[in-house]
C-alpha cells in the first residue's frame, strides 16, 4: 500500500519565517525557531508551552537524543544549551566560538558530543561532560564556504557536513582528532541538508540543484547509489530520514515522502503549503511529520 501524506493541522506560530522544527522525547514536545528571533516550545497539539527570545534569527533547534537537553544556534554566532529542570527547559550554557551566523547543530547518538557549523566555513565539535561542562574538542576547517548542515551518524563516530561550496564531507574521529576522510562532489549547487538513514547504512543529501542524492556506506566510504531528480522544482531546504522513508521540504511549497521500492525510489503525492518549506522532521515514533514554512506556520502531517 502506498503511503500518503495529509495535513492534520497548520497554525501560524511565528511572526516571521520558521527556520526549523524538532520533536522532543516521546513526541510530547515540539520546538520551532524563527526569523522572529525566538525559540518556541509546543505540546503535541500545538498548544504553547514556552518561548525564549534572542536578538537575532534562531536558525536551528535540535533535542539531544536523551531528551534532557536541547540546543539552538543563531545568526548572532552563539549556540545555547537548554536543560530540562523540574519539567521545564531552562537556559543552561552558551557556547561561543563561531565568528558569525551558526547555521546548524547535531547531537551524537549518546548525547555526549555536539557539532555546530556556520558561515565562517568551520565545523566545531563540543564535548558535553557529565558534570555539565562543555568543551571544544576540535575545529574543522575543511570547507571553502558556508557550512549549511551537519549530521552525526546514528551510532558511529562519524560526522557529515554539507556546504555552499557544493560538497559533502565525511569526518571520522581518531584519538580525539576529527579528520576529513572523504569529500563527495556531484551536487551542482549549494547543498542545504543531510540526513542518515535510521540504520546508518545510507546518507541523503539535497539542495539547490533540486536533487536528492543517496550515498551508501561501503568499507567506511560513501558511494553514490541514487540521484533522485524531478521531484521538486526549487531548492530543497530539508530532508529527514525515518523508518518509513525520506521526507523532503522544498521552496516549491511542497513536502514529499520518498520510499524505496524494487524499481527504485518513488515519491508520494506532494503535500502543498503556501510558501517555502524550510524544515521537516519525523516524529520519534514515525507516525507524523512536522514542518516549518516561510509564512511562519508550523504544519503537522499524518501518514494515511
Amino acid at each position, binding site marked *: 500500500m502506498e503511503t500518503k501524506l495529509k495535513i492534520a493541522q497548520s497554525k501560524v506560530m511565528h511572526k516571521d519565517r520558521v527556520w526549523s522544527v524538532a520533536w522532543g522525547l516521546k513526541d510530547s514536545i515540539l520546538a520551532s525557531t524563527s526569523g522572529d528571533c525566538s525559540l518556541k516550545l509546543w505540546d503535541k497539539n500545538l498548544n504553547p508551552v514556552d518561548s525564549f527570545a534572542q536578538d537575532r534569527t534562531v536558525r536551528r533547534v535540535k533535542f539531544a537524543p536523551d531528551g534532557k537537553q536541547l540546543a539552538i544556534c543563531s545568526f548572532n554566532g552563539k549556540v545555547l544549551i537548554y536543560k530540562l529542570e523540574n519539567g521545564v527547559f531552562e537556559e543552561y550554557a552558551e557556547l561561543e566560538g563561531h565568528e558569525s551566523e551558526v547555521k546548524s547543530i547535531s547531537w551524537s547518538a549518546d548525547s555526549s558530543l555536539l557539532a555546530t557549523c556556520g558561515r565562517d566555513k568551520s565545523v566545531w565539535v563540543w564535548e558535553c561532560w557529565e558534570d555539565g561542562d562543555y568543551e571544544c574538542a576540535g575545529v574543522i576547517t575543511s570547507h571553502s564556504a*558556508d557550512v549549511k548542515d551537519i549530521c552525526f551518524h546514528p551510532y558511529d563516530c562519524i560526522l557529515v557536513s554539507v556546504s555552499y561550496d557544493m560538497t559533502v564531507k565525511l569526518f571520522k574521529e581518531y584519538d580525539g582528532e576529527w579528520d576529513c576522510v572523504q569529500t563527495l562532489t556531484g551536487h551542482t549547487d549549494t547543498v542545504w541538508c543531510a540526513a542518515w538513514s535510521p540504520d546508518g547504512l545510507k546518507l541523503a543529501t539535497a539542495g539547490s540543484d533540486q536533487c536528492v542524492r543517496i550515498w551508501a556506506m561501503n568499507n567506511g566510504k560513501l558511494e553514490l547509489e541514487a540521484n533522485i531528480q524531478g521531484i521538486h522544482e526549487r531548492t530543497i531546504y530539508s530532508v529527514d530520514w525515518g523508518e518509513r522513508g525520506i521526507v523532503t521540504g522544498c521552496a516549491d511549497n511542497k513536502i514529499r515522502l520518498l520510499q524505496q521500492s524494487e524499481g527504485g525510489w518513488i515519491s508520494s503525492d506532494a503535500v502543498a503549503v503556501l510558501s517555502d518549506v524550510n524544515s521537516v522532521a519525523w516524529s520519534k515514533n514515525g507516525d507524523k511529520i512536522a514542518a516549518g514554512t516561510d509564512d511562519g506556520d508550523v504544519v503537522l502531517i499524518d501518514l494515511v
Partner: protein
Amino acid sequence: MVFASIDQALQNATPTLFQKAKPREQKASDWDDDVRDPWDAREVFELIREIRDPEHPMSLEELGVVQEELITVNDEENEINVTFTPTIPHCSMATLIGLSISVKLIRSLPRRFKVNLAITPGTHAQEHQVNRQLKDKERVAAALENPNLIKVVNNSLIKTVEEIDLDDDF
C-alpha cells in the same frame, strides 16, 4: 586634481543615462472593481525603478540597471523574474544593488510570489557568484540583520522629500 580623485573613487564616473519611462497608460478597466488586475511587469518595474545607485545620485532606471523589458511576471503561477544590468562588468556594487532590489521586492510584493532575481546574462564578470549569493535566502536574511548593511540598503530605497508627491491619490 580634485576631479582626478573623484574619478578614482568612482568605478564608473560617467555612466550612460537612460530615458525615464512615461507614466503607465491607464485603461478603463483599471478603475472597474469587478475586474481583477493581475500583477504585470510594469507594476513590478514601478517598485524598483526609483531605487538609488549606491555610487550615483541617479536611480537604477536612469542608469539602465533595471528595465521593464527585463521583468517577466506570471501572476497565475506566482512567479516573477527580474534581471538587472550593472553599469560596468566589474562593478563591485552588483551584490549590494541586487540586495536592494531584493529587499524592496520582499517588502512590497504579496508573499505568494517567488522572485527569481539575477544579473542580466553576460553583463558582469562575477555573474554566477553574485547570482548564487542573491538566491541564498539564508545569506540574504543574515545580511538584513546586519545594521550597517541594512542602513545602506534603506538609504538606497528612500525617496528624497522632493520626490514624494504629496498630492498622490489615496
